[in-house]
């Protein structure tokens, strides 16, 4: 096992895949000469040259479409958005073209393309630069959506995403690029898309969280352990297709569930998880499913408000105690 930062794990995935397949290339703002806004692609231009690591103008709609055209013609692009907030201007390319043309062409065209970049809250960047987009892209059949919480998953799932013949939305986090963790050194290490990870086993309550929310879930589980309760923590890792089997089996065991999701609450991933649990495990529930989300407002700028806006470990802990009827 090697200890890597998440940015290094993502880079390792891209480098390994580009070494393996010359049709793969990386394109985005500042990915080449500047070595990436968050230094994810550091050294890749030197290694692969200008033809395979390309800087683009500030024109997301343009280079997203360029990538789709390349994918239709046999290449396998990795498109980096400096943040997913900037991808809103490219949303027609992603939703109307990437997600639908394989369906509309009767399978004649597929899009082996990965759109990747940081998603969700990123500090005092105010309302327009703190958006969580996983629910948005998960709405559309035709897209796969992955959101990772640690270096090992980042590497294993990004390699699978790059190899996948369908468009994949790959969600990272500015806050987490520097996070270190053990990464498998197995040759050609991949993690299948669509498999959740049970990070911690328990029987008292199921806590579900992806990306940063996974860490809130884990911290709450540690607080519960101090109280004498074993929480089961699940990181879905892939938002779509979602691994319902793992979640439902867990809820059937624990009889209660708290979902942590730093998106705004309405029609969020947590909404869908809560719906599926009540539909598939109704007779196993001893309490309503609770969820902890961002507040239902745009993200604030002020530091204290931002802390209030986002799910906190304390919120998750209290929600768990509520569904366990402890308070």
């Amino acid at each position, binding site marked *: 096992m090697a200890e890597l930062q998440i940015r290094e794990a993502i880079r390792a995935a891209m480098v390994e895949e580009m070494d393996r397949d010359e049709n793969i290339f990386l394109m985005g703002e500042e990915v080449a000469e500047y070595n990436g806004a968050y230094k994810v692609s550091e050294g890749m231009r030197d290694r692969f040259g200008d033809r395979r690591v390309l800087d683009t103008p500030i024109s997301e709609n343009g280079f997203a479409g360029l990538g789709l055209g390349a994918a239709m013609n046999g290449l396998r692009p990795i498109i980096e958005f400096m943040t997913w907030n900037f991808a809103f201007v490219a949303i027609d390319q992603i939703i109307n073209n990437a997600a639908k043309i394989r369906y509309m062409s009767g399978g004649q065209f597929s899009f082996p393309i990965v759109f990747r970049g940081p998603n969700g809250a990123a500090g005092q960047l105010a309302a327009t630069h703190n958006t969580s987009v996983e629910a948005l892209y998960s709405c559309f059949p035709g897209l796969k959506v992955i959101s990772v919480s640690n270096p090992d998953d980042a590497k294993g799932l990004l390699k699978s995403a790059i190899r996948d013949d369908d468009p994949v939305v790959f969600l990272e986090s500015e806050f987490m690029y520097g996070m270190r963790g053990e990464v498998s050194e197995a040759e050609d290490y991949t993690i299948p898309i669509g498999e959740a990870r049970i990070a911690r086993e328990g029987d008292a309550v199921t806590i579900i969280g992806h990306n940063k929310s996974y860490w809130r879930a884990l911290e709450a589980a540690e607080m519960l352990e101090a109280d004498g309760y074993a929480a089961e923590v699940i990181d879905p890792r892939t938002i779509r297709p979602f691994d319902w089997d793992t979640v439902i089996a867990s809820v059937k065991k624990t009889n209660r569930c708290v979902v942590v999701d730093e998106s705004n*609450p309405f029609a969020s991933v947590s909404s869908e998880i809560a719906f599926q649990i009540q539909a598939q495990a109704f007779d196993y*529930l001893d*309490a309503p499913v609770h969820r*902890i989300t961002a507040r239902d407002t745009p993200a604030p700028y002020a530091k204290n408000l931002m802390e209030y806006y986002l799910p906190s470990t304390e919120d998750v802990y*209290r929600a768990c105690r509520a569904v366990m009827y402890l308070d």
Partner: protein
Amino acid sequence: MPIAIEMPKMTDTMEEGVLIEWSVEEGDKIAAGDVIAQVETDKATMDVEAYDDGILLKKVAQAGDALPIGGLIAVLGEAGEDVSAILSSHTADDGAPPPAPVETPTETPPAPTNIGTSAATFTGRIKASPLAKRMAADHGLQLTDLAGSGPGGRIIKRDVEAQMSRPSTRPPVPVDVSADRGFETVRISQMRKAIARRLAESKYTSPHFYLNVDVDVTALIAHRTAVNEYLEKSGRPKASFNDFVTKASATALVQHPDVNVTYAADEGVIRRYSYVDVGVAVAIEDGLVTPVVRDAHRKNVAAIAQETQELAARARDRKLTPEEMEGSTFTTSNLGMFGIESFTAIINPPNACILAIGTIRDTPVVQDGVVVPGKRMKLTLSCDHRAVDGAVGARFFATLKELLENPIGLFLEQALAI
């Protein structure tokens, strides 16, 4: 202006009615007095009539629905009128079942906190988590036996587990997991509810005591044969032994008016009747009814026989009106046709006594120091001790026995009756 058609109070004791069948369709033109539906009450199946003219705009109740008195059955009005105001005003205030919700309520998360416990309080129903309900069902526990420790008294997993770990005074109901040993659920009919309510009330409020006699019916058998030969010649229906018992009871009650009473606790009086109306219990499908032979003390056994047969036939067709089943002063119940030797009956309110009639049986009897074949019939009188003491009941019973053993008295005493 749309008009509400509500569940009418069709009998004195009716609390709710079950809509059995619609006689009209939405959009039909209705005139006042038209029958629009049939409703099962605690006593009979009866017609619901419209009080007004109009178009039937909406059937609110469906066949099989139980509605309280005043519950909305249908809406009448002019074509095209809006019925929503009537629907909402009724569902809001009269307890009639609201139309089935078309979608489940959606979550409205409270804005300041995202820990979304619903603080809504429900009343009038047992709250239990889905898991707790399933666990209780699996272990044969009644939710009504469980105390809920969750929010608002919700029964949750730990409550069921606590109940399961508690040493039970009742043996646990064996869990039946095989499909071929299940049970079916049968809706409790209005009649059965009425039987349950009235008889439970009787048994719980009136202290019953019981008297037994064994009647020598040798003479009665011969008498009945003679009477029936006469009736047959004149083309009239034959009299049963039961009819003779009805007649004898009425005659004896005239002589013992202290038994022909109602203990009216609410009014602080004992009502002593100057007439004898005998209720005759008739078993029908899924229940029993007690049509009343009016003024039985004034009628001869032939008239009683004819009237009882007519009432029983209409009882089996469920065509009796509530009035025909109300107001008895005494009741008889006969299970002799099933070979029952004797039984104790529950007093039929507002009566003070009920007579249980057993079968006529062959039995050895001692006559003048010699054992000879005999014919006997056991009678059991249940008395409400609030109104009838043992000696009072016994004197009445002795007279009844005497009349049945010497049926000539039925004619002689007739003349002495009121």
